[in-house]
Structure formats: C-alpha cells, structure tokens
C-alpha cells in the first residue's frame, strides 16, 4: 500500500513535470472545446438575402415586406451587379431579383411573372433552405392575390426531440477523445521506461508488478478526473452544456473509458520496442479512432463503407455512452451495449498485454 501510494505520487510528479504530456492531456482538449464551441455555436442559422428591386412599384415593396417578416432572413437592398458580387464574396447567401413590370403583371394576371433567385448549389443546406423559404413566401402571396382560400393547412405542435445542439454534441465527444488520448499516450512513457531500463531496475526491488501497473492506473484515473472536470466545466461555462444525466453514471463511464484506453496503451507498449515506435504507433492508433468513430459527427453522416469501421471502434461507444448520459443525445446503441463493447475491449486488451508486455 505504501509502495502503491509512493509510486502513484512519483508517477504524478513525473507527469506534471513533463510539459509535453501536460499540454496534450490538459491544454489540448481545452483548446479543442473552445475552438469547436466558437466555430459551431457562433454560426447562427440566419441567411442574408440580396434584394434587387428593378420594378420599384408598391407591389414590389409589399413583396419585400413579406420577406422581411421571415425571422431568419436578413434583407439587403442593392443593384444587381453589386448584389451578385457580394454573393460571390460570400457576404450574401442568396440574391432575389424582381424585374421591372411586376405591378403591371399582377394587374393583368396573364402568364406567371418570374422572379430570379440566385443560390449557391455547393452550399446545399443554405441553398435548399433559402429556396424553400422563398417558395413559401411567394406561394403565400399567390394565394392572397388569387383570393382562393387554402384547402389544406398544417398546425405545428412542439415536441422535445433528441436533436441536441452542436455544443452539446461535441463536449462529450471531446471528453471521450481526451480520455482516449490519455490512455493511448500512456504507451510512450511505458516504453521509454522499459528502454531506459527503469522497469528493469524496479524489477530488482521487491515492488510487485501489480503495484507498478496499479500506480499507473491510479495516476491515469486522477488525470482523467481533472480532464473531465475541466472539459465539462468549460462546456458549461462557455456553451451552457450541462449534465442532464446521473453524475455517478457519467463518472463510472469516464473511469471505464479511461481504463479501456489505458489497456489499449499497454497493448501498444507491448509491441513497440523503442520510444520512436511507440510515438508512431500511438498516432497510427489515435487518428483513425478520432476520425472514424463518430465523435466529431454522427456515424449516419459517414460514407457507407466507413460505417462498419466506426461500428468496431471503442471510441464510438465511449462517445455514444457519454453523449447519452451527459446531454441526453440520441443513442447510437443502447447504453448497455456501449458498456459491453467497452468492457470487451478492456478485457481483450488486458489479456493481450498481460501475455505480451515485456518488462525488459
């Protein structure tokens, strides 16, 4: 017990005196939270529309007023060339052109009068949304002008869904990523300690291997606690992402995740002979985990051929479990399945490293 405490303290000291590990495990995830938060929360869903009125009649002004009533549209009046240039420069999302003759056309009621709408098809969401809004507004005006009462109408009812905000999606994701890195990166000091014969020197003392591994687990779990507190705290303070689920359950999942990835770190350390190999292997492991596990975007958005890959990644399940319990996000699989898959990775990784890890 005394040796376990002393080894844990020594590990923690070694850790916080190593600037690089401090940066990657604490500063890096925080930078990620702040960066992602600013990018995704800052961009509100509001569209700027250039309004080119070549008609100038009260009818055209009435139409503009109808558009101005749509809350997510910002209307900016300009001439055609200026408006199109502004759209090319990215200042406008779309341009509506009202050609001269609108007033007369409405009075005559012959052929339909045509407005022109410029949208950017490469920005699919924006262009579709703007098209729908424009069609809706124009449709409403058609109806009023023609005087035919609507035969069908839709009543909207509010219903709480599991569609969570961008910030609520990525805070658990970044926590999962940080826990993954904490565990996987453990391989590097382990291999370094073996390479420098520190593990061998310890082997010449009565210190048991269980105590040695135990002290590493204690240290990593403590760091996981600090990391989680920081990430969750910043998520709550800056982006209002609060934990809606059971905090004990969240803590247990954090511990399970930290242990699973630490075991994977030991597997890497079992195969890497030099510190350089360990560095390379952790990158080889962590990047696919990060980008193919649905922690940055839902798995359904991935190409079909990558979805089976995501389905075996342990990080997928840690992200999913944390998202479900922390912010009530939509489940990829039920929570029990998340726990089972993570537990499976933990057991298999433990067995592999117990068999293949070399102390000298």
């Amino acid at each position, binding site marked *: 017990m005394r*040796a376990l405490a002393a080894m844990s303290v020594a590990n923690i000291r070694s850790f916080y005196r190593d600037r690089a590990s401090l940066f990657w495990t604490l500063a890096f995830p925080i930078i990620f939270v702040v960066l992602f938060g600013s990018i995704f929360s800052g961009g509100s869903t509001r569209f700027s529309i250039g309004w080119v009125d070549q008609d100038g009649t009260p009818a055209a002004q009435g139409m503009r007023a109808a558009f101005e009533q749509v809350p997510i549209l910002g209307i900016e009046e300009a001439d055609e060339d200026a408006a199109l240039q502004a759209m090319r420069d990215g200042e406008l999302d779309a341009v509506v052109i009202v050609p001269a003759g609108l007033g007369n056309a409405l009075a005559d009621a012959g052929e339909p009068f045509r407005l022109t709408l410029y949208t950017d098809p490469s920005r699919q969401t924006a262009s579709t949304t703007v098209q729908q809004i424009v069609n809706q507004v124009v449709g409403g005006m058609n109806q009023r002008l023609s005087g035919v009462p609507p035969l069908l109408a839709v009543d909207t009812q509010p219903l709480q869904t599991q569609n969570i905000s961008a910030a609520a999606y990525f805070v658990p994701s970044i926590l999962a990523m940080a826990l993954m890195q904490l565990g996987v990166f453990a391989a590097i000091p382990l291999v370094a300690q073996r390479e*420098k014969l520190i593990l061998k020197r310890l082997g010449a003392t*009565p210190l048991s291997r269980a105590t040695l591994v135990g002290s590493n687990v204690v240290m990593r779990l403590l760091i996981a606690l600090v990391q989680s507190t920081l990430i969750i705290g910043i998520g709550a303070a800056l982006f209002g992402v609060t934990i809606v689920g059971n905090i004990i359950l969240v803590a247990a999942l954090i511990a399970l995740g930290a242990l699973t990835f630490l075991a994977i770190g030991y597997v890497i350390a079992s195969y890497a002979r030099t510190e350089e190999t360990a560095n390379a292997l952790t990158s080889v492991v962590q990047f696919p985990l990060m980008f193919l596990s649905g922690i940055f975007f839902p798995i359904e958005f991935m190409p079909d051929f990558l979805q089976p890959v995501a389905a075996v990644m342990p990080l997928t399940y840690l992200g999913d479990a944390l998202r479900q319990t922390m912010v009530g996000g939509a489940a990829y699989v039920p929570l029990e399945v998340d726990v089972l898959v993570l537990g499976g990775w933990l057991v298999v990784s433990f067995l592999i490293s117990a068999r293949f890890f070399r102390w000298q």
Partner: protein
Amino acid sequence: MRDVPATEPVISARDLAKHYGTVKAVAGITFEVGRGEVFGLLGPNGAGKTTTIEILEGLRRPDGGQATVLGHDVARHPDRLKERIGVQLQTAALYPNLTVAELIDLFGSFYRRRRPADELIEELGLGERRTALTRDLSGGQRQRLSIALALVNDPELIFLDEPTTGLDPQARRSLWDHIARFRSEGRTVLLTTHYMEEAERLCDRIAIMDHGLILEMGTVAELVTRHFRERTVRFDTRSELTDASLSGIRGVSRVAHEDGEVALYTTDVPGTVGALLALGDRLGIADLDLAVRRPSLEDVFLELTGRALRD
C-alpha cells in the same frame, strides 16, 4: 578448482547456465562468495558477467544449474532475496523528472527495512543536489545516486555491474572508496568489471570469465603464482651483454627483448641478480639499472584468454 571460503557462502552457484537462442551466455559456472568478501567477475564484454549477476539478482531465470543467494533459491524465491540485496545495474536507470531525494524516498517505500534518505544523501555526497532533477545530474553524481538506491534497504549483499565504466578517474576513485567502505562495514559485494586495476585493488577474490565460462578463480596473488612461477629481471639493453652470455646466468630460463629492455625470466631472483651484477663487474659496467617484476593480473588474463583486456 573450487575455492570454498572459510565462512558460510552468501552466494553459491552450481553449474549455472543461461542461453539466448543458440548463444550460450553462461555455459555452466560454479563458484561461491563468502560473507564480507568483495568478489569480482572479470572479463571482456560479452563474457557472461552481466547475465551471471542478473541471474543472482533474481532478474533472469537460469535454464541450467542452480544458485542460492542469502539462502534463497534465485529461481524459486526471487522476491525473498530482493528484499535483502542492493542492486546497481550497468546502465543507471532513473526517473528523469524526479529529484534525488524523491527518488531515494520512492525506492525506500519498496522495502520493509530502509535507511533514511538524508543519511544516504549525506553518505554519498549528494547533499547539494538533493532537490535537483535526476536528468540534470552529472555522470558521477548519477552513479552515486544509483549506489544510494542500492543501499536504501541497508543490504547485506550488494551487486555492482560495471560500477565505474564511463566515469572520469576522480569519480572512479571516489566509488572505489565507497566499495572499500562496504567491506569494512561487513557487507558482501559482487561486482563485475573489465578494468584490471579495479579488480586488483578492490577484490578479495576474482573469477576470470570468458565465453560464459569461469577460466580461473582465486586471489590476485594466487592467480599470478598459479600461472607464473617466474619473475623477470629487467634492465636497459647494453651491447656488452650478449644473449649468449645472459642465458648462461644462474636461474635464467629465457632471455627476451621487450620494449627496449632485456627481460630475464627466472625462478631464482636473488641468484640471477647476483650473477648478473658479477657479470657486469667483470665487463666494467657500473650503472646497470635493474628492476624485478612480478607478472600482473593482466598477464594472467592474456595467458588465459589470449587477448588483452582493454576498452
């Protein structure tokens, strides 16, 4: 060729062997080390010294023969003996981001019996560096720290693997003083070295190893006497003294020319010196500068292994 020390052995190895693949690192060695002895394994790199010492430390399992250390079988109860031995590995292995005092305290926590860190820091002259990170220590300080770690459990038996390799002469001498002190404190020391001078100065007994085997074992005087009954009488080459006249001198078995000197190999030093001086008188040589040399451990080594032991 088994030298049994008078006291009960602290280390007893019999037919000890260890293979790595097809390489026989240790090919069946037998020796004993008595309580309070400083015993040296002397040999070139790759002789099997480190493998031998690591088997006795409980770090490697032998795959032939057996060994007991402080009464414990090294293969069956390595944990029991680790509690009572002090170990210094060939490459000083330390946590780079811990201080001297922290590291000594850490190692102390592994043992039931332990000495205060302050005492060890004082003893090894690390007082000024006690709050320094180990990565900032000089080579000599690092070596003294690793000796401090070997002493942290107040061990009866200390293993030192190439303790002075890579040290400057001053640091080497300081380490020799420490090893001499261990003997005066009644501790037993097993050390490996490839420095003749170190072995001659420090060790009560020496085992010369090569290719995984012990070639010869005993005190330095015993080894030399066993292999060389002859001494050499040496003097600067003089043209008046021809080989023919020298070989007729009493006791001389061989006349050799080594490094500009004449070397007369003899088993009767007083007789040879007397006859040589008389011969000089007759030829009118008054200033013959004589030296008598006993063969050194190095000569024994050369004789046994056929190669010089230098790094």
